[in-house]
């Protein structure tokens, strides 16, 4: 029973401290709210663009054309190279006749007269191989390697769009994370300052407490609780904001955001995961802030 009572005292003191320095507490809470909201946005962005870039990154195919005068042996040697290449996920050889047949069929359909006309022209197509790389970076490396291959005359891949988009989302991710990190430090600093002010205003009590033999735990606990109260209040709003906001955005657009290749992840487990992470971050940030302050100002003799 004694410990329960003691905990009540700690909590009461912690709460009193929050109220005694309401403006400092408020600014700490506000910073936490902004920080955590930003973290939530970053997190949602990362989760969704991850799925998105995985999607486009799967389109990592390119097309290599053999020289016109390529020999059977040369083709075999290139195929052998690709068979054992670690950057190659999959590849498929198409000879110039099959390719021509495909092209011609596409153009003439089942018009026999047209087909006859086409068959009289010579085949200007080259043998090709379609290569799928293991990922987008491998695609670049592979392209560089095949461009200088003596038996190949050209290498093409569909577009640099995938690269561009994943590069852009990566950059946005980094900027947002750095920003969130800076804000987190600011939150730690502000909470540290709030607790410091409380400690200063109670310096007399604290020195007497130390003198009469209060344990370190007894001295520090109310301040940690003060930090925790700030952390909890600072976390409630952004968590609610994330849960409600994300579900709203999702429902409004049937899960499609901005452009229709951008499919949002379903809110159900995601918002809870994000809420959980935000809670953890908030508790860590507020405990860190108060611990620094307590270690620096409340325990020195």
């Amino acid at each position, binding site marked *: *029973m*004694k410990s329960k*009572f*003691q905990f009540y*005292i700690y909590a009461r003191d912690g709460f009193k401290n929050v109220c005694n320095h309401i403006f400092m507490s408020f600014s700490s809470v506000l910073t936490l709210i902004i920080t955590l909201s930003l973290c939530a946005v970053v997190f949602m962005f990362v989760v969704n663009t991850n799925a998105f870039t995985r999607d486009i990154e799967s389109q990592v195919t390119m097309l290599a054309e053999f020289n016109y005068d390529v020999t059977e042996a040369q083709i075999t040697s290139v195929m052998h190279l690709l068979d054992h290449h670690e950057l190659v996920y999959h590849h498929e050889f198409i000879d110039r006749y099959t390719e021509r047949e495909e092209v011609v069929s596409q153009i003439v359909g089942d018009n026999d007269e047209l087909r006859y006309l086409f068959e009289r022209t010579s085949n200007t197509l080259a043998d090709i191989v379609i290569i799928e790389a293991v990922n987008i970076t491998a695609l670049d490396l592979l392209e560089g390697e095949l461009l200088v291959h003596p038996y190949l005359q050209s290498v093409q891949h569909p577009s640099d769009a995938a690269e561009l988009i994943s590069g852009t989302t990566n950059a946005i991710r980094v900027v947002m994370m750095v920003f969130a990190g800076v804000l987190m430090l600011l939150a730690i600093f502000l909470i540290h300052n709030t607790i410091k002010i409380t400690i200063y205003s109670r310096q*007399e*009590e604290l*020195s*007497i*407490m*130390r*003198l*009469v*033999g*209060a*344990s*370190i735990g*007894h001295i520090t606990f109310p301040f940690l609780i003060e930090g925790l109260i700030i952390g909890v209040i600072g976390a409630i709003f952004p968590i609610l904001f994330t849960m409600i906001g994300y579900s709203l955005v999702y429902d409004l657009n049937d899960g499609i955001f901005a452009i229709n290749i951008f499919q949002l992840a379903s809110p159900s487990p995601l918002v809870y995961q994000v809420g959980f992470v935000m809670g953890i971050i908030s508790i860590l940030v507020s405990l860190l802030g108060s611990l620094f302050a307590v270690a620096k100002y409340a*325990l020195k*003799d």
Partner: protein
Amino acid sequence: MIEFTNVSKRYPNGVTGIHNLNLNINKGEFVFVIGPSGAGKSSFLKMISLQEKVSTGQLNFENENVTNVNRFKAHLYRRKVGVVFQDFKLLPKLTVYQNVAFALEAVGLSATEVRKKAMKVIYLVGLGNKVLSYPNQLSGGEQQRVAIARAIANNPDVVIADEPTGNLDPENSFQILSILKKLNEEGKTIIMATHNYDLIFDSGCRVIRIDKGTIVQDEVMGYHEV
């Protein structure tokens, strides 16, 4: 009980408070510490109450080496040493009762124990009728009695008083001294620094005179020259 072995205290600014001190204080002794201002009396007392760290040498308390006591354990020793100051150091916004109870709550006692022990020591120092007064409603002597009550509330083995009568008139000074004497008779070790030589005459106590950080005189019973 308290053993100093080659103890020196140097402050960060280079000033030496105590120089190479060797001294034993036994359980149940009443010790006066005298000497000119700046001699090192407070430095000496603060090492015993662990308010200041020993710079070199060794300090034993009840046969345990407390020279470099871990900060997570220091409170266990501090509970065995009650401290009284010249300027009382009461919390002005708390009543007499709350000031004493504060010390008991600080060591984590339950509400019932706090109430019982606080009332006991407040009556012991003769302030049973001032329980709900605030420090600014009390005389200096009464405030110092509250401070003594707070110092002994946790039932320490040693009471350290650094010029406890420095701000008091002769009558109140003798009253404070008689309370400390009473505590001594109950078995507590008392170490008191003072400039008030009237209290020492015919006291029959051990008197340690410190000057420039070293002991220049250590005699039981009486006091010869100033």
